[in-house]
């Protein structure tokens, strides 16, 4: 049996989902990060850009739990607001790469004649290391929030496309797809009801991993100064600007870094857990 032919986890009850500890932890951490980002204006103790030269580079205290930066801005508040941008970028990247990846992958996997040209193009795209390709795209398009999302979206699309193509190739040979062809169903119906529906779990798993990669990549781009503009706090830009003060004010680096680590960790846990649920070889043994 193949990954693709297993019943979807979302038809299984949530309880079964959360019996998997990885998924449970991942979901809890992610929920906290998401809630903090959504509720940022209400839970942040200070305005994220409020300057206070008197308070500059203060170590963590009750007044400023994560300390303050070189302009006396509250790191905790900034980290929460930065989370909004970081999550927004990652979400955008996942959406773009999923749409592109599924489109290319299903087309290559289902229509034999288009397989070779699309696959070669994917090979070529994947020959560029992700950060490098994203940097070049951002450089070409000019740095802005939109171009970062677009650049990373294009960078990660081939990854998804490969997975989707592989699963589609397996699916296409399955009797229920052949039965659908034999019954004379229109191609679009075969693609949506029979192929896409059964690809949902591998796509979901892969999208989770792309989410994590996008978050790391965005931080790298911002850190290099070729990402989102520095007056918009993301975890990456906070790290980049905090670097100068690293020796005397390490908290500038610690908290935004931890925010990234925890968010990415949560996504990896989630992705791993979901894959275990979906992968029949592992499911069989548990």
């Amino acid at each position: 049996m193949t990954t693709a032919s297993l019943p979807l986890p979302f038809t299984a009850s949530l309880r079964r989902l959360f019996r998997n500890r990885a998924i449970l932890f991942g979901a809890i951490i992610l929920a906290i990060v998401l809630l903090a980002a959504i509720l940022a204006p209400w839970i942040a103790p200070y305005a994220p850009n409020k300057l206070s030269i008197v308070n500059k580079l203060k170590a963590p205290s009750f007044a400023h739990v994560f300390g303050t930066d070189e302009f006396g801005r509250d790191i905790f508040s900034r980290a929460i607001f930065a989370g909004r941008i970081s999550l927004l970028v990652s979400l955008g990247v996942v959406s773009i790469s999923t749409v592109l990846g599924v489109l290319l992958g299903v087309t290559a996997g289902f229509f034999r004649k288009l397989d070779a040209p699309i696959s070669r193009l994917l090979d070529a795209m994947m020959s560029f290391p992700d950060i490098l390709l994203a940097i070049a795209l951002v450089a070409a398009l000019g740095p802005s929030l939109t171009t970062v999302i677009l650049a990373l979206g294009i960078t990660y699309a081939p990854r998804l496309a490969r997975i989707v193509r592989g699963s589609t190739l397996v699916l296409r040979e399955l009797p229920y797809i052949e039965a659908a062809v034999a019954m004379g169903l229109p191609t679009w119906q075969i693609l949506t009801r029979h192929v896409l529906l059964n690809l949902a779990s591998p796509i979901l798993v892969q999208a989770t991993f792309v989410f994590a990669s996008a978050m790391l990549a965005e931080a790298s781009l911002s850190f290099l100064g070729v990402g989102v503009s520095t007056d918009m706090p993301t975890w990456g830009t906070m790290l980049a600007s905090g670097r100068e003060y690293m020796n005397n004010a390490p908290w500038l680096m610690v908290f935004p870094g931890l925010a990234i680590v925890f968010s990415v960790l949560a996504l990896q846990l989630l992705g791993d857990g979901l894959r275990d649920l979906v992968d029949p070889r592992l499911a069989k043994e548990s």
Partner: protein
Amino acid sequence: MTDTVLSVENLTTSFKTADGWRAVIRNINLTVDAGETVAIVGESGSGKSVTALSTMRLLPPGRARCEGRILLEGRDLLQASEAEMRAVRGGVIGMIFQEPMTSLNPVFTIGNQIAEALVLHRDLSWKAAEAEALRLMERVRIPAAKSRLHEYPHKFSGGMRQRVMIAMALACRPKLLIADEPTTALDVTVQAEILHLLRELQREENMGVLFITHDMGVVAEVADRTVVMFRGDMIETGPTQEIFAAPKAIYTKALLASIPRLGTMGDAAAPRRFPDVDPATGFATDGRVTQPVSADAKPILTVDKLSVRFALPQGQIHAVEDVSFDLRPGETLSLVGESGCGKSTTGRAIMRLVDPSAGSVVIDGQDVTKAGSGVLRAMRRTSQMIFQDPFASLNPRITIGSAIAEPMLAHGLLGRREAKERVAELLEQVGLSGTMAGRHPHEFSGGQRQRISIARALALQPKFIVADEAVSALDVTVKAQVSNLLLDLQEKHRLAYLFISHDMAVVERVSHRVAVMFLGEIVEIGPRAAIFDNPQHAYTRRLIAAVPMPDPTRRGHQPPPLNEEIKSPLRPHGYVPPKRAYREVSPGHFVQEAA
């Protein structure tokens, strides 16, 4: 006075599950004497393989637990240390497995893998071990053994790999051989060869053999004594002849009644239903003969000079070559043959799931070989297909009701409301309940799923159905029931079947006519009785003779096997197949003339 090699006493094996330990086999007792073959027989999930693996202590230690005693020449293996067990495995007990294709390590040569057993147990140098390995390969009759010693497993056919496994298992002259479904994955003629070989080697070595199988025919062929298992319990045990002659347990009775047996058809001109077995008593009422086909009916399907070829870098596969036949309403034509003979490809080419390279397919008076999508769509209503694997035949994500309704809605035959009623009706027709329409495929057993696939195929009211190994993956008792369903539906709707199967005994039961395929060509075609009672082609004879008889009194009726590597339909580029001539033996019975 014979020596007892293996004695299993009160063996209970449990697996660790989320809800604690769960016993999968309970209180198994059996003995195997030197030179004796004991068969464990049962359907899937009966625990027969677990019994074998427990004996070898090959179950994962943390997740499986064995209780009782397993005495090998008086020594309890359950008490033995891991080092002692290593000396036993491959040394005193040899084992062969069901899947010859995956049981050999793909990245080491055959010679290396056989020699390894010798190096491990007999303290030979690698060089001496390889020389011995060559001798063993000759002993299991691998042709051209010397040149094949340094080849890798992927160059060997399934049958040859199983011979390699046997050579490996017997390398250190074990006292006991455990054979876990060793022939299940093989073609029937290859199976005959392997069984023959095992019997010979056993006689020479005076080994005890524990033979695990689901096939009562094989049991009758090989076993001195038989243990019948059902859902983890030993149901019945005794000498094989007695069990076949007078089964005591209800389950054994039902099992024996359900087995298709060759040569029980008499001169019936039409298929005969399998006996209906009462599950409560195991009592069987003999099957009724269904209707013959009127000879003057216009064919619903005419296949003329059909060829399908696939190009490969190293040549061309002539999967189907110059195949012609027709099929009339209400008729079952079986395509039989062994793996790679082109029978499935023929069915798929008729359904246009692969494109024919040459020839024509005429369905209901319309040539569909070159049909565009419009004609093809109409054709899809006339012909339907049922597949082998019940688990992959249904989309796991959609309810079975929705799956059955889908073709009717797509062709605009019915509105949603009527479709729903029709789904319930179809489910009733295949012996399920209309209330099940809202369930997903995973809630059904294999047999039930195959019924659902049949209901889905019936939804468009086709005139013929290509049934590609439709009952082959099912357990014996279920196989009989589903075959009966197909026969009933045929009578009711005057359905024609192209019944593709490797199982000669089922074919004899359900066919009006039979076509035998070999290397892409039909070598013999004719009425069922003519093919089975008067086979003309050498291959047909071999095929029929190779079928194991579920009757221990007729053991050893088989001619000596050929021991040859299977021929392949892979030809060099530009190969022109020879023109074949057919001879009419009796009305409608044609056989290919030797070239």
